[in-house]
């Protein structure tokens, strides 16, 4: 045990050291998370519109179409960041996460549409939507508190199905399958956002993602974040150290859901429409795939994973279709790649589990978890460990 561990220890510490003069820069950014997130997001936010004006991208589709894709990718980044709290930090597998996205969206539809007769401005609706989703996060989380692993996954899967079905069948209040349309777009100081002008939405989305990342970083590194991790590691030991596991898990559900609520409000305000078909299981699944592929527990990794997967799904696959329509290769031109997107996700996830289970951009912690011998292995070897029942 010792030799291998020593090697690993050295390996870890040397991995943290940066070559040459970069170390102080890195140190600064690690000490000032918020600044590094703001700087990072500002750079990305500036770079994206510029990059798509360059040849390979600009020939592919118009700049506005790119910007539209980026903005919608932002919705999925928010969703993935929120689900990462529940799955990545607290270790609670939630397969019904789209429910909270739906609740955020419908909250905006009720708050700002001719259908409801209300017109609450977009900005407070962001808060209200997040709050509503958080409330439902607690309500749907509460019955699952005693469940773990597979059972938790099944129950949350059920909730994820129930919520859109309720919206679909409450005709009187939601116009059922038709959905609620002509929602009021946001306005700011007299300027009214419109579907034609994408840039304002893009900027708002950048701000929302930046804010979410900063806040989630802060949570992760706080007493609450530690409690989430402790529960993920060993729930019984967490409780035996004074952590109220019930409240802590409910907070994870609530905060994860509120991020989805935020995404829901934004997305329905941007599309000016909300309908039950936007929140099917595929959304929950896609977001989970984003979290897993990106690297559970690592905020930047999850955001990047969501971005990449969304771009593959909404740009690359469609692009492949167009490409093979134009260049008739016998079989390939008949395939509708968009239809095979879940097959591709499946393949990607399976190969990921085999090759790089910690995700593309894992947190340091997660990498260590998955790439060293399981802790039980050597502990089980000592005779004192063998006695006792389920709890010992």
């Amino acid at each position, binding site marked *: *045990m*010792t030799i291998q*561990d020593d090697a*690993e*220890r050295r390996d870890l510490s040397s991995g943290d050291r940066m070559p040459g003069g970069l170390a102080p820069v890195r140190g600064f950014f690690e000490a000032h998370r*918020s600044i590094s997130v703001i700087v990072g997001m500002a750079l990305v936010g500036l770079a994206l519109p510029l990059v798509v004006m360059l040849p390979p991208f600009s020939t592919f589709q118009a700049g506005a179409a790119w910007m539209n894709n980026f903005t919608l990718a932002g919705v999925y980044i928010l969703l993935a960041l929120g689900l990462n709290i529940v799955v990545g930090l607290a270790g609670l597998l939630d397969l019904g996460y789209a429910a909270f996205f739906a609740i955020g969206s419908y909250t905006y539809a*009720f708050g700002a549409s001719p*259908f*409801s*007769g*209300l017109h609450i401005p977009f900005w407070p609706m962001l808060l209200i939507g997040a709050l509503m989703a958080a409330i439902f996060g*607690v*309500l749907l989380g*509460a019955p699952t*508190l005693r469940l773990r692993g597979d059972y938790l996954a099944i129950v949350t899967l059920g909730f994820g199905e129930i919520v859109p079905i309720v919206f679909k069948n409450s005709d*009187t*209040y*939601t116009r059922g399958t038709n959905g609620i349309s002509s929602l009021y777009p946001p306005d700011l100081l007299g300027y009214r956002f419109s579907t034609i002008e994408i840039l304002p939405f893009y900027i708002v989305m950048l701000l929302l993602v930046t804010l979410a990342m900063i*806040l989630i970083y*802060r*949570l992760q*590194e*706080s*007493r*609450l*974040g*530690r*409690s989430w*991790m*402790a529960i993920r*590691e*060993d729930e*019984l*030991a*967490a*409780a*035996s*150290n*004074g*952590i*109220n*596991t*019930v*409240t802590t898990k*409910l*907070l994870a559900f609530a*905060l994860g859901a509120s991020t989805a609520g935020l995404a829901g409000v934004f997305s329905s305000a941007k599309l000016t429409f909300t309908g039950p078909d936007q929140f099917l299981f595929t959304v929950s699944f896609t977001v989970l795939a984003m979290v897993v592929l990106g690297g559970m527990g690592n905020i930047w990794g999850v955001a990047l994973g969501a971005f990449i997967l969304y771009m593959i799904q909404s740009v690359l696959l469609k692009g492949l279709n167009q490409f093979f329509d134009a260049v008739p290769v016998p079989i390939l031109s008949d395939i509708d790649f968009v239809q095979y997107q879940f097959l591709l996700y499946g393949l990607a996830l399976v190969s990921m589990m085999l090759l790089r289970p910690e995700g593309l951009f894992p947190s340091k912690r997660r990498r*260590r978890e998955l790439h060293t011998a399981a*802790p039980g292995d*050597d*502990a089980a070897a*000592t*005779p*004192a*460990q063998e*006695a*006792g*029942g389920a*709890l*010992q």
Partner: protein
Amino acid sequence: MTAQSTQPAAQRLTGGATTAERRDDLVLAAVGISKQFGGLAALRNVDLQIPAGGIVSLIGPNGAGKTTFFNIVAGIFEPTRGTIRVDGTPLIGPPLRAWLEPIIWVGPALLIVLIGWLLNLATGTPTAPQGRPQTAAEAVSGGAVWFEIGILVGLGVLIISLLLAIIRPPWYRRAIGRLGIFKSAQPHHMVRAGIGRTFQNIRLFQNMTALENVQVGMHLKLESTPVDALISSRRQEREEEASRVRAGELMRMVGLPGREDELARNLPYGDQRRLELARALANDPKLLLLDEPTAGMNPNETAEMTALIGRLRRELGVGILLIEHDMHVVMGISDRITVLDHGEQIAEGTPEEIRRNPKVIEAYLGAPE
């Protein structure tokens, strides 16, 4: 026990008994603890008292029920019978007036619905909707709405009380306690009451650093809320810094200086036991439950651990309940010893008395260590 169980339950918990269980200098007073696992009686009518700052050992052959007793004291298992007081306050025992609690959850909600219904009757407007409403606004505004409002608010109140019931914040427990309702404490309540523990099989947070493990142990000492974290308040920052310093001190105290940033899983076995001890100490417990703290250690490490336990008592004044198989350790360190065998408490006394007790000798010869 038979005499006691004929008394009303309330009296059993709150008074009546004249024995030492009422003594206030006892950190822990466990009376008549029994635990049944299906057909197996893991514990039968065990009594145990620990004075403040005392060291009491629990010994017995494998499977005697020692760890089961720990889990009961820590709030993980509910005992089949018996009560446990910490500092004179009953925390674990048979439920009292449990039927009253659901009424508290449901009652206010029903009352609100009833009021809504009465208001509807009083205002006398019809509740039936006219035709199929076209918009949500119409759907809501048709007819008298008191009843609907009553149902909505009632539902909200019901949900809130159910949430309170599962979260069980301290003030809620106090409030229902005043109504004479009693339910056994949960593990984190026992920690709050001042009981810290280690596990027979080390249960560290393996993928967290040593320092983070101790910080988790400090959970109840820290006060910053999630809101503090979100706004990154001064309090949060000061507290986090202080908790790191304090955790470092605790680690030095148990003999792990300079190991703060190592992952718990990478520590050698003996150090993991020390780290678990530091984690349990982080909440400033009045009573430490140590389940075989020297298991798997070599004689050298065992001697160090024994010295450390003695120091904890002297320097921190913390009471200790110790499960230990090593008789040298037990005899050398304990004020009193309780012996279990097959769930039965076969002896209690000073180390000298226990050493000479024929029943104990027999139990150990029957199951050689």
